[in-house]
């Protein structure tokens, strides 16, 4: 580390940098192995978007404002749809109150599912890294045996 990368007044940054230079230098191979490991172990940070698998459910989480289904019947159908829409319009405040807890539950369960999804992603990454490391070690051992 260079002196200009340190903020310290006593001892001075230069003194600390000097002391760092006096430290026994670690073996370059060990540093390289370590750096490689540090680069690969961190699970990629998930994106800010919701997991694709939950997007559809998320769009439907608010059950209060569902539109009345359309009807294929020629005359009665539109009348029924209109009546349903009128009913919804008139009673929306009551519908909101009746379904409020359902919406809260939907949001909570979606959060929990998103969390499980992320856990699974982290675990999958961890297992993949383990497998890769075991295979590398096995390859090294095999190579040493073949010598």
């Amino acid at each position: 580390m260079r002196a200009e990368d340190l903020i310290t007044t006593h001892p001075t940054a230069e003194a600390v940098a000097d002391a760092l230079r006096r430290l026994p230098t670690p073996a370059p191979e060990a540093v390289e192995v370590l750096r490689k490991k540090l680069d690969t172990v961190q699970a990629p940070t998930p994106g800010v978007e919701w997991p694709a698998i939950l997007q559809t459910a998320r769009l439907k989480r608010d059950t209060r404002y569902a539109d009345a289904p359309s009807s294929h019947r020629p005359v009665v159908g539109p009348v029924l749809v209109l009546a349903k829409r009128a009913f919804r319009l008139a009673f929306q405040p009551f519908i909101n109150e009746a379904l409020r807890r359902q919406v809260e539950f939907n949001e909570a369960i979606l959060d929990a599912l998103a969390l499980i999804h992320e856990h699974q992603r982290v675990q999958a990454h961890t297992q993949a890294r383990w497998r890769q490391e075991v295979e590398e070690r096995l390859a090294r051992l095999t190579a040493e045996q073949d010598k």
Partner: protein
Amino acid sequence: MNFRKSKRGATASPARAVHQLVSRLAWGDAVGNQVRYLRSLLRGWGYASEIYAPQWDDECRDDVRPADDYPHEADADSALLVHHSFESRLVPLVARAPGRKALVYHNVTPARLFAGLDRKVAAACAAARDELLALRPLVEHAWAYSHFSAEELSAAGFPGVAVLPFAVDWRGFDVPPDASLRAELDDGCANILFVGRAVPSKRVEDVLKVFAAYQRLYQPRSRLLVAGYLNRDTTYGATVMALRELLGAERVLFLGRVGAAQLSACFGSATAYLSMSRHEGFGVPLLEAMYRGVPVVAYGAAAVPETMGGAGLATLRDDPVEVAGLLAVLERDTSLRAQVVAAQRERLADLGQEAVATRVREALTPFLEGRSPPHPAPPSDAATVVCPGFDAAPDAPMSRLARAVAERLPGASLWTVRRDVMPVQAAPGEERLGGTTLWRFTADEPSFGGEAGAPPSSSLEMGVRCTRGPVLFAGAAEAVAREAVAHVQARAWGVWETGHTPDAAVRQMLGPRLRELGAEADVAPLAGELARALESGGATHAR
């Protein structure tokens, strides 16, 4: 932004009662401790003083009154200190409460540090910054506990911004250590300690990486102690635990929430204190380590360099191998270690209880006596050119373009992220650079250069949000553009350099108002085009 004073301060009658409002009164956290300390000071000065909060820890129930009671119990002679550090939903209550009000800002963690890891906390952090702006017209004064935080308040246009000295109850640290834990830790291993909740902004994963490097390269007989709550059910908790397994470091102890005696044992046996946090409004554990004679190694982000005040070893690099070297040098070079510990003790001399009480009184006196500071003038309609990388590389093509645009526009200013990480004043610094007005804002992190561009700056982002005129993001791929563009979308333009493509969201928001600066392109024609566009108000007629 304009910091000229627009109107003279007013004088009201002195306060008879000075109360405090906080979103949650917690036991043992920095905000709760400050609130209780201020109450004891205010009562000592003869003011009636209560703490109001909508939520509180069980241990605090005798200290607190329900926030909803404040508007009924206060009168025109009451004064209220509003503490802000997280989403509180208290702005309507503050607005309808009688009496004068002032803000005490502890800083809000940037939402980006939780992005993808905790959606609810990220949303709450973003909402907290919206609330901060909503509080602006309601308060007469604003204080922060660091210049770093005060700069953001100035950028937001708060009146009477000043730094309030942070009070630490040093006696609270003089607790005998837990004997059994101390005996367990004093086994000849070098103990590296981190204290704090394991949340994404604290970067516990970086602490793990530095420790792994230290153990592998310098000291196999070492132990990492993480004293603070880690919720393993969160995505971040799972990530940290997985990383611990993958790194394969030995003797990594997550102690969870610890008591005062256990914490004393941890500090008593620690070889060094390590912090890789990306955001601190102040950073009490750093001072606690200094008080207990433990040398501190910390990444110099946010208010950390200011808190350390030149003592300890604050580093501008977060490379685990290099930071591990600092831990090693503190362990092996006893003379250097002694110098660091002595400098840390000297640093604390300024923070004695009596000296702090005097300075707090000096800071609060104008508010307590009813003297309002002049309000800053509202932001002007002139254009703002935001070029985060200008200070680090003034001769780079994007910096030259930014300057050329600013020089073509009357009254325009050029905003950049200051390369120096230590804030030296409460307001962002204004300078003249030829015919250009240049504002330098403090970075949240010291990592300049590289593919990531300039580091983010909360105060610069806040300043951009508060502009009223057209804005040009000279460096649309920079962090500041990503964070602030949504707030100024309709009057913003952007330029990106070939090879540094902006985020999809930035591209979508700026749409036809986004230009590309080619690697070898002459900046003059593009500067002229952008200046004409900004001069016409920034809004585009393109569809």
